[in-house]
């Protein structure tokens, strides 16, 4: 398409090459954040029957945090300089900009990793796998409650900041809406629930009451996600035309249809009590959550100006 007067100003920018490693980070980091939110909620407000899945959620969050860190470092142009995000290489002073989501995100991931580690050590201690007495204290009430409160904040932060990071650019779609942070947060929680349900089934530590609560929580989250995704599309205004292609089809069919509506239908039809339905619904949520990140990132990534033409 030839460049024309009146085109949105965000079209005249270059894509930052946020591709598969970043998509994977957004997906795995989201699951990780969602899992720690669930572990913290179950720790603070749950009962003894919730403990097995709470512990599993803690392990999921720690695993996700480690993988997220590796993905982010490998994605850098000069990976060995990853520490420049935290320490100024010229002065040795801490590097932090509260108005830069990427800067805040690096520190946020670090804090999140600390609370995920605390939760996991507490879980290991509760399972009697830690022999050293001081570490066993991590399972006790004051430290565990402190860890759960920190984990709740850390998890919610990691779940949502990635969308804010995209909004604080000048790229088409990302910077044309303020809803991406909230959308990614809800998607992170729902994919966290889905991953926990699947992992619980795989480890055979499902508890009917906990599973029922997770399914109920997921339905509410998916419903909110559906509303927010519509708000996101409306807020794009004319830029939403960028979805009049294969990405739009993937968004409607894959993200909304498969990832939100189908799991909602499964839940509403009370099919969730069947183990197969739980697996089916959770699988759909995970695929939809992944596709959401694929569509949001790559649909914007492909828009660029070359010579006198705009490609989208």
């Amino acid at each position, binding site marked *: 398409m030839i*460049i*024309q*007067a009146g*085109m949105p*100003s965000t079209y*005249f*920018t*270059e*894509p*930052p*090459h*946020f591709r598969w490693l970043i998509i994977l980070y957004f997906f795995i980091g989201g699951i990780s954040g969602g899992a720690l939110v*669930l572990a913290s*909620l*179950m720790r*603070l*407000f749950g009962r003894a029957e919730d403990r097995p899945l709470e512990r599993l959620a803690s392990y999921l969050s720690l695993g996700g945090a480690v993988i997220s860190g590796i993905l982010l470092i490998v994605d*850098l*142009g*000069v990976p060995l*300089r990853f520490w*420049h*995000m935290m320490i*100024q*290489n*010229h002065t040795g002073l801490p590097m932090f*900009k509260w*108005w*830069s989501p*990427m*800067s805040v995100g690096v520190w946020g991931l670090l804090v999140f990793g600390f609370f995920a580690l605390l939760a996991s050590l507490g879980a290991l201690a509760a399972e009697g796998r830690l022999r050293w007495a001081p570490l066993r204290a991590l399972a006790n009430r004051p430290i565990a409650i402190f860890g759960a409160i920190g984990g709740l904040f850390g998890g*919610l*932060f990691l*779940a*949502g900041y990635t*969308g*804010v990071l995209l*909004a*604080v*650019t*000048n790229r088409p779609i*990302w*910077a044309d809406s*303020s*809803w991406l*942070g*909230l959308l990614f947060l*809800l998607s992170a*929680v729902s994919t966290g629930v889905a991953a926990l349900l699947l992992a619980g089934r795989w480890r055979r530590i499902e508890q009917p*009451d906990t599973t029922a*609560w997770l399914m109920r*929580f997921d339905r509410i*989250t998916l419903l*909110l996600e559906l509303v*927010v995704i519509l708000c996101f599309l409306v807020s794009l205004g004319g830029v939403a035309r960028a979805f009049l292609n294969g990405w739009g089809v993937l968004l409607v069919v894959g993200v909304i249809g498969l990832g939100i509506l189908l799991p909602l239908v499964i839940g509403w039809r009370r099919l969730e009590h069947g183990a197969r339905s739980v697996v089916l619904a959770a699988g759909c949520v995970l695929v939809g959550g992944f596709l959401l990140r694929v569509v949001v990132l790559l649909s914007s990534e492909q828009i*660029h*100006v070359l*010579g*006198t*033409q705009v490609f989208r």
Partner: protein
Amino acid sequence: MSLALPILQQQPVAAPAGKAHEPMGFFTDTTVCIGCKACEVACKEWNQLPARGDGGAHLEMSGQSYDNTLRLSGDTWRHVKFIEQFPEPYQGRWLMMSDVCKHCVQAPCLEVCPTGAIIRTEFDTVVIQSDTCNGCRDCIGACPFGVIDINHVSGTAQKCTLCYDRISAGLEPACSKACPTDSIQFGPVQMLRDRAAARVEQLHSLGEKGAYLYGADPKGPLGGLNAFFLLVDEPEVYGLPREPKLPTRNLVRSTLLSTVGAIVMAAVGALTLRARRITQVKETTSPEAAP
């Protein structure tokens, strides 16, 4: 209610004592650009930037124009755009514009850079310190003009430095030095603005009523551009955004929405767990449940 943030972290780095400078920049008069690309070559030579593609052995052809560079990038810090306006054969014009980093007074790239690699110099120019940048690419998406990109030799983000090394030594940047028509002029920004305003007046008096300055107004978008342009068509025609903005314009609103969502999710989780607990306590204490 405005949710815009105040302009953040845009102060220049401390200039050496007694070496304070007035803002320096470029004025590019596109009406006298002949598309010779001498500026592109001079920039590449002085800054030792590689040729595109495989180093020049096989020249990449755009296939859409005589302009085969097509865009600014991590290894092309000057780019002469060829805009071919030929609605009918023998009727039309070529617009040429030597594009470059705008060295914005409120620089979006500097604002978001998470490593502090992007700094404002004592000349009020914006420079990426290559030994600090780690190639996170946040600045690429933040730049409203599509100026910055990764240099595949260094792995870091790179762009025009306004020849910081040359102007520190009292020399003119390589591109303006090489420009044979003075389409690219270098100097103190205020002096360039005065010169540019006079040129616009001259063009208007000659009948080119469409001439105007893009980015010269210090009260305009991004606090004005230290590298500004004289254009004779809409900004978009030259591949320039009509309303370049700071990326942090979305920060407050986006963060607020996410925070509200986070509170709602935490509350929903807590309430549904508490409700389940209350229901189960009621069930276990009800007379029917008693043995």
